[in-house]
Structures are given as structure tokens and as C-alpha cells.
């Protein structure tokens, strides 16, 4: 087995095409176990795709995907089900079930995958809600919560079965400063309390230094850099520097590829 012993996830030489377009090309990366790792990169770089590969929702055209000592890309649907019970995923929208209360949303995976009696499920759910500070919302419906609160409930649901690995897909998008602070603390607390490996997919460079032990940057279909946030901030690579410092132009161009401006202007003048 070719993988780092201390890695929770290893991606080896993965190429993935979707709809005829190459999304990832011979990408290799590893996520250390037990730490908070940030997956960074410009929008559309394939960060969420990487998560879906790791969870077996997408299969690579070539290469290997390992989670722990399990090769994910060759698993059957049943084996994938078993793997997913040990992982928690916070999707970008939260994806709470709107017709269920907060309590029932968090209880859903517990009821589905354990034979626990309702009294025990109730305690477990209330403990998870307490952990995200929302025990008082147990009887509310998702529509009655703010966006930040919905994501916290979704976080409680994702960790309901005490997963080994937690994925957070864009957990900071659209949050106000207070909710942002709460989310940052929550991810750190969960990582420490449950001893999970946390993978935070984001393009919010500013928050990474406060949160992540390790970071990888994906751009141009490949892994561009990996290391601690401090190492990446001090990188001399032009693309890493552009991304970390938020420069509008550079290796990732401001302009979408087009003909020369003069020829477009002349062509529009001729039409009139």
C-alpha cells in the first residue's frame, strides 16, 4: 500500500474529466490525520470536486483515492455507505430538511444507522445541539433560523455519529462577523473534542491562519502548494502569492480570454 502512514486522505495522480472538460489533472495530495487542513483555491478550481472524490461520489478517470487504509475509488455502493457513516459533511447550503425540526434533522442519521432507543437518541441529539450552542432551537424548523444557525445545526447533524473525518464545504461563505467567529471556534472545538481530521474547503484566506494546521492550494487542475498557512503566506511562487494576497491580476488573469479589445470595438463599429 503506497500511502503516508499519518495521512487521513491520500490522492495519487488523479485525473478527472466531467462533461469532456478536465477538472483535475494528475493531482496528488495528502491530508494529515487529526489536524485541521484547509483546501484553498480560486472558485471553480476543483476544491469541492476533491471532496466528492474522497467520498466516492465521483470516480477518477485515472489515479487512486485513499481514505485511511481504504481505497475509495474501487468501493461498491454498499462499501461506500459504510465509509460515509464514518465521515461527516457540512455542505455549503447546510442542506437541512425543511420539513423536519432541528431535532429530527440531527436525529436522522442516528435513527438510520443505530438501533438506539429514542430516549438515548434524544440525549445524544441534545448534546450535539448543546455543542453548537443551539439546544434551544430543537423544536424549531430550519426556516425559522438564520443562515449561520442553519449551518451550525447542519454541523451538529454531520457530527451526530462522531465521525473520524469532517468535511466543511465553504463554511464561512456569507456569514456575518459574529457567525464567522462562532464557526471558526466550532471547527476548532470539534477537532479537539472528537479528535477528528477536519478538512475545510474555502477561499477565505484571511481565516485560514486562525484555523488551519495545514493547507493545500489547488489551481489550474493541479496541486500548486502545500504546507502550513505561514509557509504558504511566505511563498515566492507567483500564483500562491496572488492567491494568498488576493491580488486581482496575475497568473489567474482578471480578464476572461477574449479577442483584442481593438478588434472587438472595430467589429461593433462596423455593425452600426
Amino acid at each position, binding site marked *: 500500500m503506497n500511502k503516508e502512514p499519518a495521512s487521513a486522505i491520500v490522492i495519487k495522480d488523479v485525473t478527472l474529466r466531467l462533461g469532456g472538460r478536465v477538472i483535475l489533472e494528475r493531482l496528488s495530495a495528502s491530508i494529515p490525520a487529526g489536524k485541521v487542513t484547509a483546501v484553498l483555491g480560486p472558485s471553480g478550481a476543483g476544491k469541492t470536486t476533491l471532496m466528492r472524490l474522497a467520498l466516492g461520489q465521483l470516480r477518477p478517470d485515472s489515479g487512486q483515492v485513499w481514505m485511511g487504509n481504504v481505497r475509495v475509488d474501487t468501493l461498491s455502493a454498499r462499501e461506500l455507505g459504510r465509509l*460515509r457513516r464514518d465521515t461527516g*459533511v457540512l455542505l455549503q447550503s447546510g*442542506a437541512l430538511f425543511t420539513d423536519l425540526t432541528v431535532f429530527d434533522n440531527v436525529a436522522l442519521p442516528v*435513527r*438510520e444507522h443505530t438501533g438506539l432507543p429514542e430516549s438515548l437518541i434524544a440525549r445524544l441529539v441534545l448534546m450535539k445541539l448543546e455543542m453548537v450552542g443551539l439546544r434551544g432551537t430543537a423544536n424549531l424548523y430550519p426556516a425559522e433560523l438564520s443562515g449561520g444557525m442553519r449551518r451550525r445545526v447542519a454541523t451538529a447533524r454531520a457530527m451526530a455519529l462522531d465521525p473520524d473525518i469532517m468535511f466543511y464545504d465553504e463554511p464561512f461563505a456569507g456569514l456575518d462577523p459574529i457567525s464567522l467567529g462562532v464557526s471558526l471556534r466550532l471547527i476548532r472545538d470539534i477537532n479537539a473534542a472528537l479528535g477528528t481530521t477536519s478538512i475545510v474547503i474555502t477561499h477565505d484566506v484571511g481565516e485560514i491562519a486562525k484555523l488551519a494546521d495545514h493547507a493545500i492550494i489547488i489551481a489550474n487542475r493541479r496541486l500548486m502548494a502545500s504546507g502550513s498557512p505561514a509557509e504558504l503566506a511566505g511563498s515566492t511562487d507567483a500564483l500562491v502569492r496572488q492567491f494568498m494576497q488576493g491580488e486581482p491580476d496575475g497568473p489567474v488573469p482578471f480578464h476572461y480570454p477574449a479577442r483584442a479589445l481593438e478588434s472587438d470595438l472595430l467589429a461593433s463599429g462596423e455593425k452600426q
Partner: protein
Amino acid sequence: MSTPSSGNALTAPLRELGRAGIFLLTVLARLRLGPAQLGELLRQVYFAGVRSLVIIVISGFFVGLVLTLQTYDTLTRFGASDAVSTVLALSLFRELGPVLAALLFAGRAGTSITAEIGLMRATEQLDALELMAIDPIERIVQPRLLAGMIALPALVLVFNVTAIVGGIFFAVFLMGSDPTAFWSNMQSSVELMRDFGGGMFKSVCFGFVAAWVATWYGWSARPTSEGVALATTQTVIATAISVLVLDFVLSAFML
């Protein structure tokens, strides 16, 4: 000479039918009735059936009313006004009840199922289920498919009863027909298995088709507001056409 676009126009519906067929086979192959599915099935029977009662009762009453009005007027000219209950019962049990209730079901419950599943995809709820190792086919699609097969026959019964009430209201209370003759003619002309049973068999088939169409279009809807809107429209059109074609085929075999 056929062009690529004309080829697409011809093959696109066939491809769509093929995909919908594979979807149905997947749903049936994974059929499971655990406690979670049964609970959801009861909830869906309530949503698709009980919540469609108002439109079914009102429509049934007025269909019975207008059907009796038209047949009474025509039959009276031939001195056969006593046969009005026979025409009413046979046309309702054999054709109008199952077909009209199925069309109303498509408009009320079918669109609701499509929009719900389409929005669940757009808001990543189906993804979330899959990532929690809960099969969305088992949890979301199967209960809705089975609910259609249970709810529509029940709605057809209610439709037929209220239509007959409408017929009695017009013929007996407004036109002064003899109630005994009305009932006895109906009883003597309707065969339980052939007319009533045949209509109920049709309603089970229509319920299955209507729920299949609704779940398929919801499942395959593009995850955008435009995609969900288009899918709900397609559900009504596809269900209407499927039910009318299937009605002809079933009637041809039953007669």
C-alpha cells in the same frame, strides 16, 4: 434528408423514456419497506391523498352534475330518462372517474412531488442524504411512488361517490326523477368486477404512472429555479398524455 437536429428531435423523447425506465427499474430493484419507509409512505399518502380531497370532491360533484344534465336532456327526448343513472355510473366507473381524478392528481399532487424533489436536489438535500449513507431512492422516491398507487384509487372512489351525489342532486332533487328507479337502474346495469373493478384497476395503473412521471421529472430536474419550473410543467403534460394513452390501451384490453 435528416439533419442532426431532426434526429435529436426524434430520438430525444426516446432517450428520455429510456432514462426514466432505468430510473423506475432502479427504484423497484431497491424496494424496501422498513419502519422509516412506512412512516414516510403514510405521510406521503396524506400529502398526495388527503390534501387532494377538496379539489376531488368539488370537481367530482360538478362533473356528476353536468354529466347528468347533459344525458338527462338527451335521454328525455327519447323517453329514456330512467337510463340516466346507468349512463352516469358506467361512464364514471369505467372512464371519467379514473381519468379525471388522475389528471387532477397530476395537477395537485404530481406537481408538488416534482417541485419538492427538484428543490431537494437544488438545495443539496439529496446530496446530504447520500453523504449520510441514506439512499435517497429508498427514502424519498419509493414512498412517493407507492403513495401514488394507494392515494389515487382512494381519490377515484371519492370522486365517483361525489359525482353520483351530484347526479342524484340534479336528477332526483331538481328534475324530480324517481329515486328508486335511479338506484335500481344503476345497480342492475353496473357489473362489480367488469365496470367497478376495471375502473379501480385503471386507477392503480394511473396512480403508478402519475407518481413515476412526477418523481422522475423531480429527480432529473436541473437544480435551478427555471429547471424546477420546467420539470413541474413537464410533469403535468407527460402525465396527461400517458394517462390518456394508457386509458385507451387498458380499455381496449378490458372490453
